[in-house]
């Protein structure tokens, strides 16, 4: 078990590409941190630097109390689970799990005990003598987990371990991994581009974009207070609505909506509205033209336009909806404002007391 600290860690590949700009963060003992971001943003690179599979160009990395920049991966006291499992195809499950221990010259009886323990924990008892090619994807990933567990590492590293599994199995494995991590209490860093995985598994999320850290925070902070338009549009399914509004003299106006607030900014702004913070209100200020109703069972999504700008509304399943004109209202306390050029979030102090949100009292006369 260990803390992990990155101090201005930077990666420039030999071809000159800067995959990770100087980044610093600290991970507490036992914490489950998820690195999330779009493809090519440098998640894997960052993780691989922590694993020691990739050189660190600049900065220092410490695991526990030790600076490990120049330590071999095998000696960093880490275990890694790969996207394509990376099991040794010619070895049985048992040998796969035991290989790392064998290389450390662990006594045979200790190895056997640890393999048995891991197999029991991961429901792999029936498969110990099979080859990886005789296992399903989920079982293979569990073997990969087993290989990581038996080493008793200070740090678990996961690089998109679930992305080769189908949706159902992914949900199940997600819960298993999280439960296992809770039980073992091992500090973990988990890379994914799936924001659902990030939200559900993480103690803290680190959002990366183009090799830069956009935001670090708990899932709830990231979701409710995104630091930039990038985070706002990346996290959440459907993502936050981002529309152009106008600020003048302490009043934010967008499509008939006027909200008094104190912001150090005048002129155009980007306004962020979560789809679930909008609700149908016959006398509401926002006039929306609904183009499409997306039926999702547990809820519905309305896609449409307000003054030519795209908007998505999230409705509980009890509320009927159809295409056509519709009036909406929103809870101003949940509004986010972003700078129109930089995309950074601006601090807002609300003047009006937030009005209670009341989905149920609303009639749906579209």
């Amino acid at each position, binding site marked *: 078990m260990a803390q992990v600290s990155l101090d201005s860690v930077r990666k420039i590949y030999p071809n000159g590409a800067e995959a990770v700009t100087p980044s610093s963060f600290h991970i507490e003992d036992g914490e489950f941190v998820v690195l999330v971001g779009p493809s090519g943003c440098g998640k894997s690179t960052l993780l*691989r630097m922590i*694993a020691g*599979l990739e050189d660190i160009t600049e900065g220092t990395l410490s695991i526990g109390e030790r600076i490990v920049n120049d330590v*071999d*991966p*095998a*000696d960093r006291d*880490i*275990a*890694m689970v*790969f*996207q*394509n*499992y*990376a*099991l*040794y*195809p*010619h*070895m049985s499950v048992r040998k796969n799990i035991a*290989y*790392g221990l064998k*290389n*450390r010259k662990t006594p045979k009886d200790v190895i056997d005990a640890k393999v048995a323990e891991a197999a029991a924990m991961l429901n792999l008892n029936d498969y110990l003598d099979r080859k990886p*090619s005789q296992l399903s994807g989920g079982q293979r990933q569990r073997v990969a987990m087993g*290989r990581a567990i038996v080493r008793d590492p200070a740090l678990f590293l996961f690089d998109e371990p679930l992305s080769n599994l189908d949706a159902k199995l992914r949900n199940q494995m997600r819960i298993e991994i999280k439960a296992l991590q809770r039980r073992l209490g091992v500090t973990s860093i988990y890379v994914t581009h799936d924001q659902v995985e990030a939200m559900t598994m993480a103690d803290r999320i680190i959002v990366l974009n183009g090799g830069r850290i956009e935001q670090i925070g708990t899932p709830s902070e990231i979701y409710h207070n995104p630091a930039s338009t990038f985070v706002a549009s990346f996290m959440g399914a459907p993502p936050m609505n981002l529309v152009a509004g106008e600020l003048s003299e302490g009043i934010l106006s967008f499509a008939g909506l006027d909200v008094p607030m104190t912001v150090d900014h005048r002129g155009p702004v980007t306004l962020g509205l979560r789809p679930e913070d909008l609700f149908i209100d016959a006398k509401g200020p926002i006039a929306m033209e609904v183009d499409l109703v997306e039926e999702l069972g547990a809820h519905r999504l309305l896609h449409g336009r307000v003054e030519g700008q795209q908007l998505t509304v999230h409705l509980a399943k009890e509320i009927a909806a159809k295409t056509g004109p519709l009036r909406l209202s929103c809870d101003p306390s949940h509004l986010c404002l972003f700078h129109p050029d930089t995309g950074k979030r601006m601090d807002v102090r609300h003047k009006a007391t937030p009005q209670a949100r009341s989905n149920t009292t609303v009639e749906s006369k579209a």
Partner: protein
Amino acid sequence: MTDISAHAHAIAQTRKRTWFKLETVFDHAILILGSLLMLLPLLIMLQTVTTPDLETMKLGPTFTIGTELDDNFRKAMFEASGFSGQNTGMNMLKNSMILGLGFALGKIVIGMMAAYAIVYFRLRFATLAFWLIFTTLLLPLEVRILPSYEIVQQLGMMNTYQGLIIPLIASATATFFFRQFFRSVPEELIEAARIDGAGPIKFFIDILVPLSQTMIAAMFIIMFVYGWNQYLWPTMITTDENMYTLVRGIKQIVQTLEGNNIPEFGRANMLALIAILPPVLVVIFFQSWFVKGLTESDK
């Protein structure tokens, strides 16, 4: 309407089927003809082996099977044809085996290690080295046979197994195939092994060699047959009858009419049969692996 179209459809189908059949017959005819053509020498050998030499000389190949098989076998395997009395079939078989195995295993070991160095280590001129090795494919033994001979001679390796094997052991072909194979091994596997604490030697022995099994088998077949069939090189390097290989030794047996000697057709053909047997067995035994090794990439 539907009737007509259905009918037309049926006709089209039957026509297609007969045409298909004709084609199959034709294909098979060609294949059967081809294999007969290739089998013919073998059949003649088999016939000759069972017939007394005199008869063969008088009549040539016939359709009758004679009774001399065991006698010819005994002569071929246990009687020497030379002066020293050492180049019996058994002895030559042993020499051929040593050459074939040494040649194949040596090439595999050297080729694998060369490919390992080229693919996995950040050598400064790895690519250049590889292409240099590759261009040696353009320089077969025959081109460099005189300098090679001189070197072996100066090293005093004439009439030794080392002299037979070592100068032929570096293999661009094996290096090339192993390089291609190693490059197809997923990067993640190497990284997992690194994290599992496998150093370069452990990785090679524990992971790469077992993974290359089918490739090794494929290479073994090619190289064994190639080594076994070497003729020119053993002819130059071995002057001692004790060191003759089968392929070279067959030549030693009298095959023309000289004075009172009848050509030993039966014996020579018996040796030839024995000489083709091990390569055939190797191919049959490793066949399924061979195909797998060159086509499949199961990782």
